């Protein structure tokens, strides 16, 4: 059990650093509270955003914490691949730059597995292959589909 956890932790840590780098061009890593006894301590999420010093996630801003958590989630997903992924407004408190880079990340990753993303942001909709518009008439949901043309530029 300890060996399996150790190996998975190392893989997740690598993926986490790679994903965070792709998303923000910064550096991120996981630190074990207790290296000897992995199961007795916690795990710290550390990151340094481009041009800024490194902080533990509890001292980051709301959006910085989210981006770091998203990078960790995406890294953990790699360890346990699925044929489809579903994200519901995961970009809620990201600024324009971070949501743009997440949209490109999803576009890239969607060549390996199906991704369904719920989002209110134009950046995410513009970057998609297919967009689904949901609306409500007298309490009943309806859905229209629109294939996004390749040349769509987000406004």
């Amino acid at each position, binding site marked *: 059990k300890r060996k*399996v*956890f150790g190996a*998975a*932790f190392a893989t*997740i840590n690598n993926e986490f650093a790679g994903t965070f780098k792709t998303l923000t061009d910064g550096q991120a890593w996981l630190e074990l509270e207790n290296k000897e006894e992995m*199961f007795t*301590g*916690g*795990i*710290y999420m550390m990151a340094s955003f481009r041009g800024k010093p490194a902080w533990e996630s509890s001292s980051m801003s*709301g959006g910085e*914490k*989210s981006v*770091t*958590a*998203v990078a*960790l*989630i995406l890294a*953990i*997903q790699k*360890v*346990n*691949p*699925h*044929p*489809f*992924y*579903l*994200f*519901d*407004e*995961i970009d*809620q408190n990201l600024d324009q730059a971070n949501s743009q880079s997440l949209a490109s990340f*999803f*576009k890239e990753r*969607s060549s390996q597995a*199906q991704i*369904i*993303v*719920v*989002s209110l942001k134009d950046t*995410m*909709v513009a*970057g*998609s*292959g*297919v*967009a*689904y*518009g*949901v*609306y*409500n008439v*007298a*309490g*009943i*949901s*309806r*859905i229209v*589909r629109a294939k996004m043309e390749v040349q769509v530029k987000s406004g």
Partner: protein
Amino acid sequence: GYIRRLEVKGFKSFGPRALTITFEQGLNVVTGPNGSGKSNIADAILFALGENSPRVLRAAQGRLTGLIYDPKREAVEARRAAEGAEGEAGEGAARSFSPEDRPTSCKVSLQIDNADRKIPVDSDLVTLTRELKNNGENSYYLNGKKSTKSMIADFLEVSGLSPSGLNVIPQGAATRVADLTPDEKRKMIEDVV
């Protein structure tokens, strides 16, 4: 095994009639106003994959039968009576909002692509169907043939489809992961390994 089609009938805000969504293999982005029904799509997918927690499915009144479309007839009747008292105009507007009766069940079918035969069934498509009646009874079907909850659970496990390992991230979950304590973070990773 990507999701090709989702068919809902009587499930949450999708109303009493059948509604179909066809998904693509690549990137599908769902958007729309607050309260339009976006998260209910995620709930429908989880329901078909065997999710049983009313909290996770955000079922009204904290009971699974709260997933069945509820036109809130008694509220509408009450309002219509009030509008009626204000004269004919109310009648016209209210009539266009004539919600049907509450269905006695909700049903969700999930059609999964199996061209790569990763799922141990010899067909290009695999259809998972789950129906919940207002008496709380669930029925499960695999490619149209009646099945059981545990058989479906085993089937999902073997075909790598059961929603675990964080492949479905509900609304607000990323912010919650960001605020986990160091111990909770370790536990999250342990659960996936």
